[in-house]
């Protein structure tokens, strides 16, 4: 199905050899040619020496999901030759290093094998092992530029910008790119049948990863205290926040910081710091991933019960336990929604792209302040760490942060008795005070049982009054969180697809492919927990519901049943949890198979579900 501006290719290399910068160069060059492009880094949990792959998808139609198959594989890692060759689609191409005899593992019927002596060219033209290793990546980028008709002058200009201050490196890189380019042109018919042609589709787009965008959101939302413990794949969020703060939050003249970033001793401490700062009146956050979420549970319960705002970014990775730290998943849904012991519920936001990471990050800080509670932003590794093409971020200068109900010194000067946990308002939110503002606002934060005044209590009625109000507050939040996004088919559809977060790109694409097959489906993408009334309405309106998510146990479906009462067995799970970004094909196949199954009795239906569950190899 490949063609002009519609194909995918993969670089299979060894991590730590510098291929990342060559891959990024290729992706950005395609972007600058005005062609929609996506890059997925499928990397190991390792510093140097293990197999790594980078997939680039070019899509004139603007699809950004991971490709189901690749048209061209650059096989530069002998350890994975067999697997990489097998991943070429029938009729596709393999590019290998012909400095050495063709490895028998690389031979496969039905594909075209192209050899370029990358290693030999590097030995002939460059000095030093490290240099040769690094520049080999640029040589293959040059060969790909010829084969795929990438604008070689544009690549030259980009190298010029990248190495503007390092003329020696620039010369070497320019030589390397030409070596690959010229060799491919001299030995093969260029370009290949699928290749690039300039477009003008990216005018208002940028390339950014979700962690950078989320960090930028925290800066724009006015967060001043960030606490964290390094953990893949969330680390780059705080690194980006640090860099942005240096840029935008350094006090003119004095050079002093309008922010405080603390690298804590562990995730428990990071959560404690964020909560302490939220209590004292700063906008605060911490960022982590699965294992960190487990460690933060106790503190999350404290913040919930004592009603302290903070924001926790969970960049989900593959669990359970340490799991696969550099692979993606959406398997923290339940542990976020009900984090901590006792009766607890939390606001969780689910961005589907880096663009949404920015906007929902800002929303998260507002919701945390407004509802005086910890708010989770559930991103994932694919969104957080991969470069996505998305709409240029915008900011409204009239934006004023919603700090919620906070009594100031004037309010407190007239108050008779301040009762921290008493609310007269419909939203169930009780006004809070900040330490240091006024003697009348002093109260005692305690995770132990407390009454509406904040006093210690073991009295059933006084205890229940507070936890019942918390429940009411949470119910109110359902109407304030971002509503789902809906995509409706042109005709009235029986099929409703429900999905969440990073699955969006694949589901959006799948809707088009399904329509091409004559299957019309409506789509609802959940953007937040608790669910607003539209969620149940969508489920009720569609006789056939599919719930697409990236975990084994259908956690979103469980949440839907638990919170809306909609029967579990009336929703067919489409599950993809092998750790790689979702492809449209998984969704298309599952839905197409699922709708062909005649409607069965509730008893039989359980069997039908297992047939359409997707279990990647």
């Amino acid at each position, binding site marked *: 199905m490949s063609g002009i501006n519609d194909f995918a290719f993969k670089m299979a290399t060894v991590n730590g050899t510098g291929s990342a910068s060559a891959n990024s160069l290729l992706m950005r060059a395609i972007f600058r040619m005005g062609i929609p492009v996506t890059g997925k880094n499928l990397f190991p949990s390792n510093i140097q020496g293990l197999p790594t792959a980078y997939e680039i998808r070019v899509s004139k139609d603007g699809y950004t999901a991971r490709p189901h198959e690749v048209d061209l594989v650059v096989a530069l890692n002998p350890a994975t030759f067999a697997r990489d060759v097998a991943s070429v689609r029938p009729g596709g191409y393999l590019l290998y290093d012909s400095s050495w005899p063709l490895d028998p593992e690389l031979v496969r019927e039905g594909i075209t094998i192209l050899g370029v002596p990358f290693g030999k060219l590097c030995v002939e033209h460059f000095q030093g092992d490290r240099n040769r290793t690094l520049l080999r990546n640029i040589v293959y980028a040059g060969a790909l530029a010829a084969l795929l008709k990438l604008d070689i002058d544009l690549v030259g200009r980009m190298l010029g910008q990248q190495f503007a201050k390092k003329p020696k490196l620039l010369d070497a890189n320019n030589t390397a790119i030409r070596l690959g380019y010229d060799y491919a042109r001299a030995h093969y018919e260029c370009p290949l049948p699928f290749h690039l042609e300039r477009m003008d589709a990216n005018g208002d787009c940028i390339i950014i990863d979700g962690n950078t965008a989320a960090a930028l959101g925290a800066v724009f939302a006015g967060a001043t205290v960030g606490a964290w413990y390094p953990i893949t794949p969330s680390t780059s969020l705080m690194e980006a926040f640090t860099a942005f703060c240096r840029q935008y939050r350094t006090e003119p003249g004095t050079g002093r910081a*309008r922010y405080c970033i603390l690298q804590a001793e562990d995730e428990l401490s990071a959560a*404690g710091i964020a909560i302490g700062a939220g209590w*004292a009146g700063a906008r605060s956050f911490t960022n982590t991933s699965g294992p960190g979420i487990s460690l933060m549970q106790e503190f999350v319960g404290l913040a919930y019960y004592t009603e302290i705002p903070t924001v926790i970014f969970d960049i989900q990775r593959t669990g359970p336990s340490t799991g696969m730290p550099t692979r993606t998943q959406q398997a923290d849904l339940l542990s976020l929604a009900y984090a901590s012991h006792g009766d607890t519920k939390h606001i969780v936001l689910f961005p589907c792209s880096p663009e949404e990471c920015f906007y929902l990050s800002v929303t998260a800080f507002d919701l945390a302040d407004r509802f005086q509670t910890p708010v989770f932003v559930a991103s994932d590794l694919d969104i957080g760490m991969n470069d996505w093409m998305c709409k240029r971020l915008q900011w409204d200068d009239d934006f004023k*942060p919603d700090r919620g109900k906070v009594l100031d010194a004037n309010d407190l000067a007239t108050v008779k008795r301040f009762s921290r946990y008493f609310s007269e308002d419909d939203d169930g939110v009780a006004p809070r005070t900040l330490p240091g503002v006024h003697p009348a606002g002093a109260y005692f*934060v305690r995770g132990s049982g407390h009454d509406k005044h904040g006093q210690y209590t073991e009295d059933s009625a006084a205890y229940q009054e507070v936890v019942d109000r918390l429940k009411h507050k949470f119910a109110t939040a359902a109407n304030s969180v971002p509503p789902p996004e809906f995509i409706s088919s042109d005709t009235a559809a029986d099929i409703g697809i429900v999905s969440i977060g990073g699955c969006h790109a694949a589901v959006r694409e799948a809707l088009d492919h399904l329509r091409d097959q004559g299957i019309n489906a409506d789509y609802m993408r959940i953007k937040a927990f608790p669910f607003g009334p539209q969620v149940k309405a969508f489920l009720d309106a569609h006789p056939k519901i599919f719930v697409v998510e990236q975990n084994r146990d259908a956690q979103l479906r469980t949440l839907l049943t638990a919170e809306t009462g909609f029967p579990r067995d009336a929703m067919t799970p489409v599950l993809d949890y092998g750790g790689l970004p979702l492809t449209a094909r998984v969704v298309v196949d599952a839905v197409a198979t699922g709708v062909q199954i005649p409607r069965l009795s509730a008893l039989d239906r359980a069997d039908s579900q297992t047939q359409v569950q997707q279990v990647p190899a």
Partner: protein
Amino acid sequence: MTSIAKPPVRHPGLRTNALGLTPRDYEGVMSTLCAGCGHDSVTAALVQAMWELAIPPHRAAKMSGIGCSSKTTAYFMKQSHGFNSVHGRMPSVASGANAANRALTYVGISGDGDSLSIGLGQLCHAIRRNVRMLYVIENNGVYGLTKGQFSASADIGSTSKKGDANVQPPIDPVLLALTLGATFVARGFSGDKAQLIPILKAGLSHNGLALVDVISPCVTFNDHEGSTKSYAFTREHEVELAEADFIPLRREITMPASDTTVQSVQMHDGSTVRFRRLEDGYDPTNRDLAYAHVRACQARGEMATGLLFIDENGADMHTVAKTVDTPLAELPFETLCPGQTALQALMEKYR
């Protein structure tokens, strides 16, 4: 159990401090600890210290974890905000609060279970961060609320109420803090208020984390013969290395220049701590000597008390982070949000 408010009865003759407040204004609700608990004496010393320093109650924040000691934050300074967090995690909450609002006076109250077992890591890292706060460990060698188990500070051979002897070596917060680079390390005894109050006052004025380990006997579970954290044992084995006197900024310091047993340390806020050497060669500004003296005392079966070490030139958390003087929580949004123009300029880098 609910909290019991104290009747607001005031004696007309009560002295007032610079703010016109009496010591009663620095008290909290009625203590629910056992009668005779050492912690109540520490509470009383804190009330006195805060009153004498005339700290505006609402500008102080009381931070604690879980345990008998952590409960005491309710028993002083009812006009101050208090934060009773989770077990062993007070240091991180205090770090965050201090990061957000550096202008408040932070008083952390913890115990040997809270700080030396479940919260040992948090204590160590708060010391490393050098969070500006008074950090009091009310140390009784025993878990009171769960009825008498040994804590990590129990000495080898010290016996429980039931008669079992502790076999694991103790963690000494003073030695630990000295090793970790703490900039203020002291040890007091709840039964010696005269010694404790100047230490607490100095700690409250310290520019960094002031660790004060207070031996505070548990009358119910650890005050029997055989215990090394009882009133009797502590009285008998306590050795004061240097007597500290705290002189606030507004009081003139007069000191005979000829008195070579007196050493003065200027505090960050302009106040002074004056030490009178009780042991030959003791220098509370020398970390290695302080460590050696505490160890030597231990070897003799004694317990060193007093303001044992002070370094007023250490950089606190905010100095290291180079944060602005204005509390972060009070910065106007306009100074925090870069705005649309800056964002669009930035977006060019992602093209």
